[in-house]
């Protein structure tokens, strides 16, 4: 069994240095990789999200400028079981889990998966991952 999963990907580019090069690739795809390094040496590089570039938004402040790129892409996924770790928040509804937040994003978790949190088990309908320079979290909706 497979499910169709719509991916939305948004990235913030902290400078305008590559504005021209980005604009030249307006038909491109955003591909986000997770990189694992040990002792400064890259060991693994894995694609975790992909989207067709749809919007190039330029934000100008008093001192800084930045670019936000975003887009969507539909992917086909095969549901699996995943155990949740680093859970920091649970929202219950009618005795069942409605949403879970984890401190460390599980980039392998996909909508359609069965998430297992201790003795609770639920089907994931949506996942939101937010990662910045000093923070990260993942919200999982049942």
């Amino acid at each position, binding site marked *: 069994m497979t499910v169709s*999963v*719509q*991916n*939305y*990907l*948004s*990235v*913030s*580019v*902290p400078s305008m240095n*590559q504005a021209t*090069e*980005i604009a*030249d*690739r*307006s*038909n*491109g*795809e*955003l*591909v*986000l*990789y*997770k*990189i*694992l*390094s*040990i*002792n400064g040496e890259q*060991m*693994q*590089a*894995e694609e*975790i*999200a992909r989207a067709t*570039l749809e919007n190039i938004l330029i934000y100008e402040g008093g001192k800084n400028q*930045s670019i936000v*790129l975003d887009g969507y892409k*539909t992917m086909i996924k095969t549901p699996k*079981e*995943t*155990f949740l*770790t680093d859970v920091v928040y649970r929202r219950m509804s009618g005795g069942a889990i409605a949403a879970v937040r984890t401190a460390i994003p*599980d980039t*392998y978790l*996909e*909508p*359609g998966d069965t998430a*297992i949190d*201790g*003795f609770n088990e639920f089907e994931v*309908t*949506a*996942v*939101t*991952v*937010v*990662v*910045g*320079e000093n923070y990260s979290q993942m919200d999982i909706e049942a």
Partner: protein
Amino acid sequence: MTQYDGANNTSTEYATLDATSNSAPSPQVITMSDTESGSYPAWYAFNREGASYGNWISPTNNLSVTSLMVDLGSGNAKLINKYAIANSSLGSNLKPKDWILQGSNTVGCAAADAKNDNGWTDLDTRVSSSDLVSEFASLTYITFSCDTAYRYFRLRITDTVGGMSTGGAAARAALSEIKLVAQNVPVTVAAVAGSVESSGSVSGVQVYLSAVFGEVAITGDIPYVGWQGYIQSPPVALVVQAWVAGVSFFLTPEAAQAQLDTLTGQMVGPVQILKVAAAEISLAGSIPEFLFYCRPPIAQAGLSPSCLFIHLVLSLVPVAIEIVPVASVRQFSVESPVVTYRCILTGAADGLLDLIIPISSFQIRKRVIE
């Protein structure tokens, strides 16, 4: 294929390779004493366990004896003291009941008349045996004493349940698999300084064992890496999760390993990392010990051993259990991987090269669509 017994630092090695033809993989060569049937070739008895991988059958009727032989190759003699054979799915009358397992180091004997015993040493003889069972999963291994390594092995079948000399199409012998096992093979594990993180007495819901398989020069069939320890008060369940790149799994006890069958043999490339499906292992009985092994796929093209990264989480359920420090951890270095993210904007659609974009943050939203 080798399975490692960490407790005794020994391995169990299958002497034969999973055959893909009578002469592959090299140097293994499989022959039989009689004309081979195209639908039931000799190598089907050495490919993989289970009738779904095909059966070997002796093709002619009214035989008094028929033989299957395997040549392990020059310089590749093995000391065998354990074997098993699995019945075919072709009918119980074809099931062997009288047979002899033989060994030889006489070059050329494997190609000689299999009905001739010259040069062969009897290793194990079975008469009216019921040791041959239908399912490999419940296969009974037969052990015997042997202190000589042989290059050639032959299974010499002299009668079946239906009777080989009774004539007719049913008067033939058939098998689905033969497994020859060399036991107690010493294993040399290179000494590499390292330790496991978070070892020590821990009370609570979860115990994290995290380790990185660092820059280790890998030669030969070993090393394995793994964790070994025991639980003072067995919990209801031991949940194993693993983030692994490029390794295969072996987990004991065997009942637990069966639950992780989906992991075995899963290999991923050097630029991928695989989070394997977690499995819950019932420890309702008294199974205080656990062993978890990973073996790097050293034969995988393009994969540098130093690229291997292993992260293991053992979750003990329910709470209020005490964990004894993990012991016998080998070949781990203590460095933890650093996770970063990289964004690329592809350029092919615009006739340009891909562009690496420095990013300060990102957001991913995923949802199921109907």
